[in-house]
């Protein structure tokens, strides 16, 4: 496989590329293979940017070319830049709210780039990095947070379902979708994103029941960013979340979610298992929400001393940069081109956001239902009343 630089993954190419990291970079002898307990979270790239060997997962990224690796780095940098711009826009009153992904870029890009075009991702409200990988225009995301739309893209067009705000609800949708894939004989898979907090919702656990019983091709991707607003993840479970899968009879694996390579490898493998009829897999990506829950939140009230610093040392972007630099893969030309691209992206996002037209007032009445042949005079009267009011 290769990952193109326009943000859409290409069809998988099983042949490992010969200038990939497989041979040259293996400096540390071992790492977790997941399920943890057999060695902890799967890591392929240490916080210091050192590539460590992992017999189980190395083959899953053996095909990556240098260009692919730079592509991943580019994704990380650009989504962080977009995210920072969105946060700034919210502070300036241009967005009603923003849920920052800062700190979670690798978990999102690694898993997002593991997807094939035909797969369907079911996000929460924070998967801007996955949206990016699914070629969704960042401005489309902003239209939701600006209060202009409900988040109105076409899931089928992007392989990316609508943002889901009711915590956990989308995990059942992903499972049903995957059941449908199995029914129509497709080779696609579904991936359900959810947080550590969401793991407590009945819906998420019912999805585990369903997926196990129907052996649905779905990957449950839990971004454990350590917090559900102000509650630490131990308030949701006294054992690591990847272990939840045991109870439902399918594999769970813990991955270093700040390691884009490990996340890519683990998600690819999980998707492959799902596709090949092995059923669901739960991936717990250990990561950290570096910012506030949303721009409405104040993490100073609950965050632990030193925690942010500890996780900053594990920053997903810094480690990828160190790795690429130290292995001579990141030239200055690429870096400055990327900086320019990030700046351009920020400018485009800002301009697009502030010039985004307000929705026409009548749009409030559009698409409440799909069947236009039903006439309802009561509804029509409400609509007419608003039309009169707005002139």
């Amino acid at each position, binding site marked *: 496989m290769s990952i193109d630089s326009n943000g859409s993954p290409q069809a998988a190419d099983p042949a490992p590329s010969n200038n990939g990291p497989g041979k040259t970079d293996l400096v540390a002898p071992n790492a977790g293979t997941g399920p943890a307990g057999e060695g902890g979270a799967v890591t392929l790239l240490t916080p210091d940017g050192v590539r460590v060997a992992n017999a189980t997962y190395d083959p899953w990224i053996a095909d990556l070319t240098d260009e692919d690796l730079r592509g991943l780095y580019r994704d990380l940098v650009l989504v962080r830049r977009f995210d920072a711009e969105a946060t700034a826009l919210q502070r300036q009153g241009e967005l009603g709210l923003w849920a920052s992904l800062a700190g979670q870029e690798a978990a999102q890009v690694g898993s997002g780039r593991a997807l094939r075009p035909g797969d*369907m991702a079911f996000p929460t409200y924070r998967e801007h990095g996955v949206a990016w990988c699914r070629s969704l225009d960042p401005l489309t995301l902003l239209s939701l947070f600006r209060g202009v*739309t*409900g*988040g*109105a*893209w*076409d*899931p089928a067009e992007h392989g990316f*379902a*609508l943002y*889901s705000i*009711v915590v956990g*609800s989308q*995990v*059942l*949708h*992903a*499972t*049903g*979708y*995957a*059941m*449908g*894939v199995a*029914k*129509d004989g497709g080779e696609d898979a*579904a991936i359900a994103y959810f947080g550590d907090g969401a793991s407590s919702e*009945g*819906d998420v656990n*019912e*999805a585990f*029941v*369903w997926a196990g*019983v129907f052996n649905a091709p779905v990957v449950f991707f839990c971004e454990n960013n350590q917090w559900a607003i102000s509650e630490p993840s131990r308030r949701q479970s006294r054992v690591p979340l990847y272990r939840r899968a045991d109870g439902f009879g399918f594999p769970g694996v813990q991955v270093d979610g700040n390691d884009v390579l490990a996340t890519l490898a683990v998600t690819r493998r999980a998707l492959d298992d799902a596709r090949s009829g092995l059923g669901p897999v739960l991936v717990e990506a250990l990561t950290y929400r570096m910012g506030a829950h949303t721009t409405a939140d104040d993490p100073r009230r609950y965050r632990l001393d030193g925690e942010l610093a500890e996780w900053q040392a594990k920053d997903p972007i810094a480690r990828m940069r160190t790795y690429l630099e130290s292995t001579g893969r990141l030239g200055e030309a690429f870096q400055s081109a990327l900086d320019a691209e990030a700046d351009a992206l920020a400018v485009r996002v800002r301009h697009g956001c502030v010039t985004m037209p307000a929705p026409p007032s009548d749009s409030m009445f*559009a*698409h*409440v*239902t*799909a*069947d*236009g*042949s*039903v006439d*309802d*005079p*009561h*509804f029509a009267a409400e609509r007419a009343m608003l039309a009169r009011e707005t002139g």
Partner: protein
Amino acid sequence: MATLTLAKALNQGLRACLEDDPKVLIMGEDVGKLGGVFRITDGLQKDFGDDRVIDTPLAESGIIGTAIGLALRGFRPICEIQFDGFVFPAFDQIVTQLAKMHYRSGGRVTLPVTIRIPYGGGIGAVEHHSESPEAYFCHTAGLRVVTCATPSDGYTMIRQAVRSDDPVIFLEPKRRYWEKGEVDTAVDLFGIDPTSHGPTGPAHASAAPVLGLHRSRVTRPGTDVTVVAYGPMMATVLAAADVAARDNQRSLEVIDLRTLSPLDLEPVFASVRRTGRCVVVHEAPGNVSLSAEVAARVTETAFYSLEAPVARVTGFDTPYPPSRLEDLYLPDVDRILEAVDRTYEF
């Protein structure tokens, strides 16, 4: 034409749905081998396979949540909720997801999910098996809510509901499952050009016109009092109309709402303008209910025609009582006639 029970008419309607469209699925608890606790899906798994008629795990949120996912993949799931009282674990998926995803998506996503719910009391059951939850769904924009009172409507309406691109809550009056009526199963519901009128519109010109899914019906014409009801109460109201005609020489015009959301009240308004009197009947508790809505709209629209305020006959504002009390709880002929009388007292 065949004489069928409502249960059998629904069963045949569902069979037709499965035949019409390979994307139609049936899913729910015990809908497979057992054919559902009321046997409405009897024989369907045997004939269409367990890939299309699916016994699900015992979790209602899961049923609706996965049905939404299946719909996103292009399927048209028909979900059975075993009893009215067990729809509430799925309430979040229904209200926040199923009802709103089309809107949220700006019309890009459609969720043609039908939720069948046997509802209402009168079968001597234990708690949670006799509820009338329609008000909850009617208050929720984005859902369509319908109910049938006869085998013929059962057969036709389930097919129309499943053809609808909107989520439809399909309420089945369970204590009428075993009542019989004439059903024309040969009717061509969707016409030669199914797109020309939309799935809920009238059939093509050559067939007898089939009432659209979202149309109410004057079941019994009359001149003195307009009585509005639906579902399980229709038989009771028609019995009351018989008694009124015989004992009081009063002619009740009985209207079967059929569609609870959206409401189709034009026939009611027209009737009240003639009769000047209106009684609305349902067995759901009265407080903040459909009868309040009908009363409010009738009053607003036909204020000067009304000789008396709209009278409401409903279940009491208590939980559904133990079954030995249900005959006293449910509106009966006397209570309906008493309300009719009340409209003459003003």
